[in-house]
């Protein structure tokens, strides 16, 4: 009598999932690949289909997501428009000043020791900036300690996760040119952190000005 009931009960789970998938489809009719739809599908209240069809559909990484470090620079701002100037050749924002002072804390704290820094010198005297900066992203374990311990908010974690390449000995050694990202970009991917750090910086400057 009871034989096979267990199978039917089990299949009912699958069946209910199928139905919920269609309900979800109707709910998001016409915009199945919309980022909002995708986020809702994988939210804590999501039911129905759960998976994302990568690479056609992509979820936006969460703000704290960390992958390969990047070096921040302040972009040169056009005085007329108040917007960062853009280099026509590279399409990147023009560097006004780098934040890195070449103190070497990131390379010391790095667990797999994947950061190499050459400090800039002028007339034999060390300068507070780097001449060369390399990160071997094959060795990097994405732990984020360099960003955590950088005293100048200069090294931060990027969001770019599509890093596959055909070879690794050249394209996976990121040099300074590849690592430098503008603070505008940082503010766009880490808005909360950016606002907090700016507020702290302004408070510090105000305290300094008082003295």
């Amino acid at each position: 009598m009871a034989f096979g009931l267990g199978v039917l009960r089990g299949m009912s789970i699958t069946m209910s999932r199928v139905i919920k998938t269609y309900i979800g489809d109707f709910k998001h009719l016409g915009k199945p690949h919309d980022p909002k739809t995708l986020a809702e599908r994988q939210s804590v209240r999501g039911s129905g289909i759960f998976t994302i069809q990568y690479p056609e559909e992509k979820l936006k990484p969460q703000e704290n997501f960390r992958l390969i470090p990047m070096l921040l620079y302040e972009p040169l701002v056009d005085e007329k428009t108040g917007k960062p100037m853009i280099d026509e050749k590279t399409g990147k924002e023009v560097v006004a000043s780098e934040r890195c002072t070449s103190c070497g804390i990131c390379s010391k704290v790095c667990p797999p020791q994947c950061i190499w820094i050459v400090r800039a010198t002028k007339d034999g005297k060390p300068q507070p900036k780097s001449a060369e900066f390399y990160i071997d992203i094959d060795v990097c374990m994405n732990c984020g300690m360099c960003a955590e311990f950088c005293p100048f908010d200069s090294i931060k974690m990027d969001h770019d996760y599509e890093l596959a390449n055909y070879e690794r000995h050249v394209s996976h050694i990121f040099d300074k040119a590849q690592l430098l990202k503008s603070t505008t970009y940082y503010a766009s991917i880490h808005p909360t952190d950016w606002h907090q750090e700016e507020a702290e910086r302004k408070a510090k400057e105000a305290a300094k000005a008082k003295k």
Partner: protein
Amino acid sequence: MAVTAPTAPIETKPATVNDPQVIAEKIKLQYPDAVESASAQGIVVKNNRLPDVARYLHDSPDLAFDYLHNLTSVDWQDRFEVVYHLSSLVRGGAPLVLKVNAAREDPHVPSLVPVYRGADFQEREVYDMMGIRFDGHPYLRRILLWDGFVGHPLRKDYHEPYYEEDKKPFGSRWDKGHHVIAEDRNPWHDNVQYPANFDSTTYQPPRDQIRTIGIEEAKAKKLRTDKIVLNIGPQHPSTHGVLRLKVTIDGETIIAVEPVLGYLHRNHEKIGERNTFLQNMPYTDRLDYVTSMANNLAYAVAVEKLLGIKPPERAEYIRVIMAELTRFVNHILAIGFIYNDLGAFYTPVVYGFEERELILDLFEAASGSRMMCNYMRFGGVARDLPDGFLDKLQYLVNERFPRVTDTLETYLVKNEIFNARARNVGILPRDVAINYSAAGPVLRASGIKYDVRRAEPYSIYDRFEFDIPTGTIGDMHDRFTIRIAEMRASLSILKQAVKQIPAGEIQTGKKNYQARAPKGDAYGRAENPKGELGFYLVGDGGPNPYRYHVRSPAFINLGALNEMARGYKVADLIVILGSVDITMGEVDR
């Protein structure tokens, strides 16, 4: 098939300290010449009297040290020291530390396998890594490295060829750090040492013998069958990683199982001794990659014990939340994979993966990474919880997860096929489980109410009310249902923690990337989803640990696999292995 009668679960009472001084006095009464010294750091026992002392500690009814937590060794350069952590499961409390010295040249220590079978794998590991010979060990052979390996890598005079210095940070990285690809600096062929006159074309590995421990003739044979050795793995989807099982079978009956380990070995402990204390944190993520948050917690607990610091309230709550979410993740996968091993390919486990995904999203929101969290710091956590974290968590632990757990229980525990295959199969009797140092769900399924969260509460586990579920006979069914019960217990802790979590600081003092540990040793442990994860750390005043040892629960639980599987059919072996719940990243280290 040996079916033991159900035994009543033994209650474990919380913390009574095993004071080494008092116990040393008791040993002295029995064996006046056995104790060399006794201090808060442990009892130093004379090398040749160790078996007597261990036997006395184990058998004496008022001491009853029936459980060997951890066995490791330290290379002090003028001598070796073997360290044992014993405790009584009935009393609980911090383990008693026994230490034995051995000569630097040709070190010998008597084996404790006759007293504690759990010492078997751990002594082999010490022999492999430090070259200490354990007299009387039934099968002293390398366990993680290959048989032809030259040297013992955890000795201080062994330098790994790949690395330019013995300690990090390396001087070549700053301030003239011109990048060199590692292979260019150190060509691959120089990275491997071979025995003298080694020729790969003629090399014969030591002849595989059938292990003598535990072999019994299958009784009541109807057919005349031959014993054969069947290799399962190392590349096999059912072995949960790269694990090789050398199974001796008679017909279809298992006579002996020998796990062959080391395919994922990367000498985690040597890496750990090269790193600074903080640099080890992300490496602990990679031990058991399913439970990285809990590994972080165990390591932080151990280092904080050594440094003598305490995290602030909010950080403690965050830690507990993360550790219990990890337990939920691990168990939901474990029960899914048991079904996988039973032949229900991927259906239950994929439903489990969905819930796991939601938890991993929370981990990513808090720490920045889904699996390699690297979230705990000494005296706190890396960053505060982001906005919206607790709202999501509240919904999950109060509504969604209880619902999911109920569904799993209805469909999986009451499944007829599962009941037919799991009941009275893979039994690990109570005393055997204790003797083999099985930990975590495997131990509790055999009816022993022992949980580190109760026995020696770390973090703030003494504040929460939660059940410690136990099984009755220790079969696969018990090991399955106990995980569901533990998921419920975790949810109850999470509910309390979410309600009570205070606002405030998340870090004690200033963050220090080169914390210096004082001279001394500490054994910190935590109840990981897979069992007791312990870290034995020795500090020498510098920023790098002098000795860094991981007591890996999966590795030691695997030692009891032979006992669980013997006498059952070979088709049950994979499910029995699944019910132990191992991750090879942690087993091989």
